């Protein structure tokens, strides 16, 4: 592996995984083969979801700067700036995920030099390239390279991630890039959505942190309104954990665009659970990212979409929605009411402290901007 070679003098001892599934889960540091998803954990821990290796790595960022309140990013051409630093053309820089450090407010980006391979509208970055570059954008606007290979980290293998078979309907695409689609840390656990090799492919892995080698796998089933049937093979594209009356839930969204609620306490190892589809947000679209924020004393879920405007669902409306969508709705819009906000071309989104949201947005001039919005706008 290229990165290993480069950093060989600095590498901490690592454990090589022989193959998928057969090995017991480990907590030793493993090589990072791809940075498919990013999520922050407690105390400056950055989780790297690694679809290629079928693993999750916890990267200890070490001592961080004190939280810098009021940080705002306004970088109009972040792909060009990254391209210059990683030695490629602006048009080849692809950002696979974004996570903002809740402590330092630095923005971390998983990057590859593979955007030229993104040849269809529905290609998700992880389906066409493996991100191998971790970039840190700091509040003063400078861009740094994070040498994660040389940093202290622990790893855990996910049991039975999907193999690399051909995608059902995307030509020249395999599904391994969807082994990990999103991650969030809650209550001492990292939740990881993706695809497994199980009969019911869609999965949520529940990984205790600090890693102890144990991972609970729960396969998922939902009613998909645009398809008019129960499905198990499509992965969650974006999710957020949320407590209703002290009970933990996972609010998840899918391609075309069901919005589903799962009881987090049901995420037990080797179980198969059915989510409750509580909204259909429109077809021809997938959710890019979801966050929870507060405005006017009420919690809201904000969804950035690939092909639809931004959407806001109030958690009170979710809590009071008793029904379940089990039929194909007219126009593929039904269930929990939502508001829309302007905001197209959003490719990544995360919370930036309590009062702001950081986004990557494709502008009409083709440039990708890193921008910050006040939560008041939403």
């Amino acid at each position, binding site marked *: 592996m*290229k990165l290993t*070679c*480069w950093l060989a003098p600095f590498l901490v001892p690592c454990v090589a995984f022989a193959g998928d599934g057969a090995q017991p889960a480990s907590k030793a540091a493993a090589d990072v083969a791809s940075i498919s998803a990013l999520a922050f954990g407690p105390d400056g821990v950055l989780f790297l979801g690694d679809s290629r290796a079928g693993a999750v790595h916890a990267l200890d960022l070490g001592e961080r700067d004190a939280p810098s309140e009021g940080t705002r990013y306004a970088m109009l051409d972040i792909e*060009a*700036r990254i*391209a*210059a*630093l*990683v*030695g*490629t*053309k*602006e048009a*080849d820089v692809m950002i696979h995920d974004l996570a903002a450090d809740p402590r330092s407010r630095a923005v971390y980006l998983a990057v590859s*030099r593979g955007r030229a391979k993104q040849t269809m509208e529905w290609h998700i970055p992880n389906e066409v390239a493996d991100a*191998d*570059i971790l970039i840190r954008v700091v509040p003063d606007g400078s861009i740094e*390279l994070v040498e994660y290979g040389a940093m202290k980290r622990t790893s855990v293998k996910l049991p039975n991630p999907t193999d690399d078979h051909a995608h059902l309907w995307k030509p020249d695409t395999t599904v391994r890039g969807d082994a990990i689609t999103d991650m969030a840390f809650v209550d001492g656990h990292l939740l990881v959505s993706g695809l497994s090799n199980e009969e019911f492919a869609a999965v949520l892995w529940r990984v205790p942190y600090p890693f102890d080698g144990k991972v609970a796998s729960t396969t998922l089933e939902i009613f998909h309104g645009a398809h008019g049937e129960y499905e198990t093979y499509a992965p969650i594209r974006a999710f957020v954990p949320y407590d209703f009356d002290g009970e933990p839930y996972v609010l998840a969204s899918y391609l075309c665009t069901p919005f589903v609620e799962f009881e987090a306490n049901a995420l037990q190892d080797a179980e198969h659970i059915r989510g409750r589809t509580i909204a259909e947000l429109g077809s021809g679209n997938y959710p890019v990212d979801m966050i929870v924020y507060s405005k006017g004393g009420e919690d809201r879920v904000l969804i950035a979409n690939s092909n639809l405007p931004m959407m806001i669902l109030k958690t009170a409306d979710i809590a009071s929605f008793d029904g379940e969508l089990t039929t194909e709705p007219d126009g593929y819009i039904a269930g929990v009411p939502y508001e829309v906000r302007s905001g197209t071309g959003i490719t990544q989104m995360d919370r930036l402290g309590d009062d702001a949201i950081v986004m990557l947005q494709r502008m009409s001039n083709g440039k990708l901007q890193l921008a910050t919005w006040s939560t008041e706008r939403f």
Partner: protein
Amino acid sequence: MVDRTLLAALLAVATSGCATPRTGAPTLTFEAPNAAHPTGSVVVQGVPDAKLDAARALLVVRTQESRDADGPAIFGTTTSDGGVVRYEPRFAFLSGVAYHAEFRGTELGLAHLARTFHAAVRPGTERAGEPAPRVVAVHPSGARVPANLLRMYVTFSEPMRARDIHAFVRVLDDDGAEVEQAFVEFEHGIWDDARRRLTLLFHPGRLKRGVGPNLRMGPPLEAGRRYTLVIDDALRDELGRPLGASFEKSFVVEADDRSSPDPRRWTVTAPVAAGAPLDVALDEPLDHALLSRMLTVTNVAGEPVVGDVRVGDGETRWTLAPKEPWRAGEYILWVDPALEDLAGNTPGQLFDRGPIERSASGAPRGPFGMPFSFSP
């Protein structure tokens, strides 16, 4: 003529990156990825030992995109072991990306070196036994050119890939330093329809006396120096086959050509036999491409004489071998008034002076006919 857009572009990119004389003899080379240096390297050799450490900070490697935008260098490390300064990018150089390496040696009293390179050849589709493409001609073909040379033509044996052509072409001065912004860099170059002849246009704004780029940067070539045109070996033809070896042509630069070509000083030698060529000795080397189509022959009735045109003797000789034998009678050799010499001067106008200011020679400005006769 220089259009306004071009001038604006020239003004925008005008920098102080011109080569300066050097005291040492360092060289700047690109090394493709290999086992020892898996991401590729840019190497400066010939730096005196005492200056090696200081030289590390002077080697700047950027993408051409970043360099054009005056952007930052690529993440990488520079070492000075074993008598060479070596830059290795943190992430391997990619094929299909143009890179620019610069050694700012003047800070150490050494040469300023700069070159653009393509890191790797694309996956080839070479077919065994087929000859690699090659450069078959460069015009002007002579060994000496005026300092205000306007164009060069490079003719290849095969149709070539045009993409990012300027990353494969450079002019080095006699110190081995790349002449910065020598040519107008059209994205995919100026090619003939067959994509075998590449036209390299020296920056007109740097040649025209008194316009912005000329005042800021001076002309690209200096009289009295020797230069070398280099076509990089990584340039590929349409089938993906590389040149195999880089091509070089050296030439000596003489004083500016500030006079118009004058057809009245040409020697027109009428054909000596019905199948023999018409032979025209020119008064100075003229533009090769224009010569091929701007001299024509008709009979007195205006009917064209079709045949095989050849340009030779360093573009100072033009011949027409007729397809049909000459018939006894009068013919006219017509000179298109747009015909240019190597510096873009036409019979009626100097390249950088308006038509009102007639050229010193007083040569004719309109279509100009020179009669000759054939008698068997």
